[in-house]
Structures are given as C-alpha cells and as structure tokens.
C-alpha cells in the first residue's frame, strides 16, 4: 500500500470513530440550555433548530416545554417562517402576535399541539458559519421589552454554537486531525500529502452507520466495565447470528 493510501485509510478510520471519542454530554448540554432559557424567560417553550448539511432545511434538534416531544425532529424548509428569516438574515427578531401572520408556520405549530402567540428568535452562529436558530415561544409578558431578552438569549445561542462546533470537530475527526498535522508539518511534501488526503475524507455525516455504532458503543462503555462487557457480548451474538442466516443480496 502506498503511503497516501495508508493516510487515507487512517483518515477514514478516524472519521468513522470520531463520534466514539467525542466529549460526552453534548445532547444533555443542549437540552439543559433550552430548558434553562425557557425557565429564565418564563417561556412556554424553547427550541433549537439546526441547519441541515445542505442548508435547505431547519431541523428541530432540541426542545423544552410545551410541544417539545412533538417538535423534536421536525424539519421545515430554511426558506420559510420566522426561524427561516432569522437564519437567512442573521438578525434576531421578536413578534408579539404571530396570529396575524398568515404564513407563520401555523401548520407546523399545530402539528406540535401548541400554537404560540409570541415568538422571540435569535441566530446561532460562529465566526465560521451560521448553524441555526434558538426560539422562545410565549415569553412571560411581564418581562420588560424583548430587546434586552434578545441580547440575553444570544448568550445562550453562543453557548449552543460552541457546544455544536466542538461536536462537529469529532464528526470530521479525520479531516480535522490531518489539517492540523499539515499545519504542523509546515511547507513540504508531508504537509501537501496530508492536505490532499484531508480534502478527500468524508464527514461522518455521510457515512452515519459506523459513526452511530461507535457512538452508541461508547455511550454504553462509559457506564462501566460490566456494561462494556455486556455490549461486546451482545454485539458478538448478533454477529454470530448474522453469520448463520442466509445473507440477503441487494
């Protein structure tokens, strides 16, 4: 195997296994963040919607409060609704009465069993890219003007952006590692080779199965040695079972 092929294999391995070594608790952190924001602002609900990889949709990833269970996982086009305008314009907005907005995603809101009257939404972004939007529904009306709360909610948005960025690094671990190594190598053949290979490495997003498996296994394994042994045993049993079955040809 020539050296660049070896590098590529290593890079792909790192990318596939990245999710297994990413810091635990990002999902919990984001859930805690939305619940904290919801309580702090006295809101009926708070949600975090993230742009899909091709930036055509917003995916409601984490939510707290009314309708949270139903909204989680919902996808809306990024070219629609108040959340869509916020990610496109990069500007926060608050609307006191969305009822008079006929195109407000009433349909989507009704699907969650909760139709809000007021919404306050701020973008979630870094200096590198726009990530999504945090929305508060029906903030406590006793609170002073939305203007101050926009600034406060933006602080939560910054925290969410930080958490998401560090997670992303682990989804593209191969690329991240190789680019870092290329920089460290300075000029020359090694740096050029590392950069070349880095740009060919897929993101874990494009090959999710092994990444999911690695992440699930890592979650179990973190609980302790007994859980790790159990997970291994189950996995081996499934593998043995799969060997016995006649395989399905596509």
């Amino acid at each position, binding site marked *: 195997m020539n050296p660049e092929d070896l590098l590529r294999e290593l890079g792909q391995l790192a990318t596939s296994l990245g999710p297994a070594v990413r810091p635990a608790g990002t999902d919990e952190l984001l859930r805690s963040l939305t619940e904290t924001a919801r309580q702090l602002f006295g809101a009926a609900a708070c949600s975090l919607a993230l*742009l899909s990889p*091709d*930036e*055509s949709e917003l995916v409601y990833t984490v939510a707290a409060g009314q309708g949270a269970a139903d909204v989680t996982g919902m996808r809306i086009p*990024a*070219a629609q*609704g*108040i959340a*869509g*305008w916020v*990610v*496109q*314009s*990069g*500007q*926060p*907005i*608050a*609307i*006191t*009465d*969305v009822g*008079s*907005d*006929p*195109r407000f995603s009433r349909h989507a809101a009704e699907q969650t069993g909760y139709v809000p009257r007021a919404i*306050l939404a*701020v973008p979630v*972004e*870094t*200096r*590198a*890219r*726009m990530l999504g939007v945090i929305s508060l529904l029906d903030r406590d009306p006793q609170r002073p*003007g*939305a*203007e101050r709360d*926009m*600034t406060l909610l*933006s*602080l939560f948005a*910054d925290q969410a952006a930080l958490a998401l960025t560090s997670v992303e690094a682990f989804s593209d671990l191969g690329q991240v590692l190789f680019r870092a190594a290329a920089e460290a190598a300075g000029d020359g053949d090694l740096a050029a080779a590392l950069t070349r290979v880095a740009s060919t490495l897929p993101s874990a997003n494009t090959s999710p199965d092994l990444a999911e498996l690695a992440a699930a296994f890592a979650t179990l394994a973190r609980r302790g040695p007994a859980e790790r042994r159990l997970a291994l045993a189950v996995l081996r049993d499934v593998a043995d079972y799969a060997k016995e079955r006649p395989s399905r040809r596509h």
Partner: protein
Amino acid sequence: MPRLGLPIDKDWAWGDASGTGITVAVVDSGIDAAHPEVGAVDRAVALQWDADTQEATLSEGPHDDLYGHGTACAGIIRRAAPDATLWSVRVLGRKLSGKGVVFAAGLRWAIAQGARVVNLSLSTSREDYFGLFHEVADEAAFAGVVLVCAANNVPAPTYPAQFSSVISVAAHDGQDPFELDANPAPPVDFGAPGIDVRVPWLDGGTIVSTGNSFAAPHVAGLVARLLSKHPHLTPYEVKTVLRAVASNAR
C-alpha cells in the same frame, strides 16, 4: 452627548420634504407591493446563487415577499418618506449558499442603477465575508450611496453594520418615526423605533414586533426625506445632520 452647535434643526434638515426623487432600495426578502402601507414598488430584482457557475443570477420583475420582513421595512420607510421611490432587491429566501456573493451583487446593482439609500436587513458574523462586505460598503460610500444597517445585539462584530462607512442603527422604545437618538459609543450610530412597533407584514396584515432590523428602516426613511431636500449631501454629511437633529444631542 455634547451638542454639535451647528445651526441644523429638523426644519432645516427635512421640513416638509417627503422623499421625492430619492430611490431607496430595500435589500431583504422582497416587498409585497399590494400592501396598502407600501404603495408602489418601482423596480424589483430577485437574486439567487447558481452553484454551477458560482455566481449570483439576477432577474428583474415583480416578485413576492417570501417572509414579510421586506414589506415591513418598505412600510416603515414610507412613514418618513411617503414619496420616495422604492425598489426591492430580494437576496433572502432561498438557500444560504453563496449569500455573500448574492448580497454583494444585489447591492452593486442598486448602486449602479442609481439608488441613493439602501436599507439592509442582512448581517453576518462570518469572518470570510468581512473583506467582500467591506469592499462593497466602501463602493457604496464612494458612490454617494447611504447604507443603513441593523446593528448587532451583542458586542461581537457583524458585517457590514460594523463598518464606519455605513449608518448602523439599534432599536429603542420610542414610537415617533421622526425621533432618533445618537449613540455615544461606536459601532452603533443611532437609536430609532424598533421595540413593539406595529409594522406591515404578509397578506396586507400587520404585526407588532421588535428588532434592530425594524429600527434601520426608520432611519432609512429619514435619510430619504433629508436627501430629497438636500440631494447633494455625501454619506458622511448625512451622518452629521442626523447627529445634529438627534433628540439626545440638542
């Protein structure tokens, strides 16, 4: 804020002028020309990113407002400048890709076609847009075109509002479209109504909303009114006049 001590008051600045002969381009999500508070939209261009050619495509002709925000801005501008000429430059509403290039193309079109004032809802924290937006902001200033931008809610820089060559506006809780405050601490230049303001929205309706993105068109309207009385003012002279008539600096 210290007084400027110039013999400039609102009577000198705009008196009964109404924006006649001044073109204001709303760079946003489109304008609903059928809205009773908007009146005529003289020209409309829609821009999109073409991933194949890596360029922005432009098509002229009446178009919808995809979110409502552009219509809100147009209606607010009319409050101070009922007779200004309005153009719609739609850069928001499709995918996010190529946003910087699309924005620059839209703004350059408005400048080349003779707009004097541009109201900009778009802002970005992305570092890789800094250079392009700075260049375009300079082009506008050198062409005598006044860019009015919504400021950021948090201390982080946002472009092009951050640049000294534009007028950046934040929301205050006043309701009078002819009152603005000068901000003593850069980068925000002025405060204008943008908290709990009733604004035009989709399908001929109105909503009550909050955001710096509603304060900016208040100032854009005042600039159009001012320029219709004093058409030879440069952008920095416009800023000086606004400063002189600000409520907190007299």
